[in-house]
């Protein structure tokens, strides 16, 4: 499918060959540390109606490196929204100012709706607990780049699989490939939501669910870590009880394969111990660096430059 003019709402809107094209362009950008005025005279609206630093600045940086201008609307500046303007009206206005809209909103489905309203392409930068497709692209790219592919690998996903949009999009993105095994590691309370589970089942994807990181660490080629948030637990004591079991430190990693890679969508709080940063496993900062190039490649493909 052609990339030009396309909305980026859900990782499942893409096929494997779409991602191959995105990733090979990203490779070129990474290798040449690309900067060029490809977006000169074009503008990208960054409509961030939920607090965000990483994703917003990653897009900001991507647009800057391509010589485009940014029209930012962040929470603090969203005076029109505060006055009671609808998202639809905000989108319509920015649609007339910008050539592409990047949107984050805590309401699930907001990006899909924005794409219905806007004529310009819309990129979903996170909608509640639903989707975060550009993060999934970064994750899949990082695995492809560091491991030479996704197929056949044993991939562990750790943390909040129920409310975490990054984890959900990553897991769905894995179904575009043929990983050897997907291992879902989380407390009972935060297991995969039924919509994602049913999708895996309908595609015949094999996965193992477990509460124990230690049991599965030796099998893993990739460990994708997400944060478990205290507020997801009705009982704070329960949170305190489980949090230690999901902390990735050197002890938890004893027995891991030598070439295991650990990814994290960031920001990290304390789910990965700082001591892990100095090990060859730690690839999360590299992953974040690739994020800018993925977003540059996306902008180039969607805007046809």
């Amino acid at each position, binding site marked *: 499918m052609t990339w030009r003019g396309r909305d980026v709402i859900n990782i499942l809107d893409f096929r494997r060959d779409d991602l191959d094209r995105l990733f090979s362009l990203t490779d070129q950008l990474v290798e040449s540390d690309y900067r060029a005025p490809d977006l000169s005279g074009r503008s990208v609206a960054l409509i961030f109606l939920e607090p965000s630093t990483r994703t917003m600045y990653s897009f900001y940086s991507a647009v800057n490196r391509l010589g485009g201008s940014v029209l930012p609307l962040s929470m603090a500046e969203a005076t029109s929204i505060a006055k*009671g303007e609808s998202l639809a009206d905000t989108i319509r206005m920015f649609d007339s100012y910008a050539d592409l809209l990047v949107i984050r*909103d805590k309401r699930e*489905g907001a990006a*899909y709706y924005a794409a219905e309203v806007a004529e310009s392409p819309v990129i979903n930068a996170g*909608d509640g607990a639903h989707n975060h497709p550009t993060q999934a692209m970064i994750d899949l790219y990082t695995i492809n780049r560091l491991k030479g592919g996704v197929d056949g690998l044993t991939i562990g996903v750790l943390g909040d699989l129920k409310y975490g949009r990054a984890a959900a999009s990553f897991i769905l993105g894995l179904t575009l490939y043929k990983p050897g095994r997907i291992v879902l590691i989380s407390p009972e309370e935060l297991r995969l939501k*039924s919509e994602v589970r049913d999708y895996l089942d309908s595609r015949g994807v094999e996965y193992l669910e477990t509460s124990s990181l230690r049991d599965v660490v030796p099998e893993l080629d990739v460990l994708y870590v997400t944060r478990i948030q205290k507020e997801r637990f009705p009982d704070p004591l329960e949170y305190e009880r489980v949090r230690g079991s999901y902390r990735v430190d050197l002890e938890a990693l004893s027995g891991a394969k030598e070439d295991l890679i650990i990814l994290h969508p960031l920001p990290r709080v304390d789910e990965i111990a700082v001591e892990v940063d100095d090990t060859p496993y730690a690839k999360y900062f590299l992953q974040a660096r690739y994020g800018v190039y993925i977003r540059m490649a996306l902008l180039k493909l969607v805007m046809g430059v």
Partner: protein
Amino acid sequence: MDVENGILVRKIRMGTVIDHIPPGRAFIVLRLLGLHQEPRNRLAVIVNTDSRKLGRKDIIKVEGIHIRGETLNKIALVAPEATVNYVEGYRVVEKFKVRLPDEVVGVVRCSNPRCISNSPREHITPRLEVVRPSPLRLRCIYCERYTDYEDVIKHFFET
């Protein structure tokens, strides 16, 4: 009509008979069709009667009108096996099964309170795809969360 209901309720001369409603759901169907607040029509509700097909079932008879249009298919949300019979001169002149469309538009709202379609400022017409008719499961085209039979019932009794 496949059962002897004459004892309870007499046959109607002209009107609509909605048959094969799962037992206990007739009042939900009335509500779906807005008949619970329509005093002009004489109607009979037969609850928990014998059925060869379902074991037990409910029946609604509405005298004087042939209920038509898209609203009839709303019935399929709670009674996927229901049949609609048009009666003229005490005889069934037309009979068909209700049909659940592939997408339910503007009838029920998404069960996810965090869905953009439930945002009061946005005025979005809810659109839910049918995942399966029985037990009913719908999926919002915006947030992709499920809305199940229980959610639909809650929706109709809250509004």
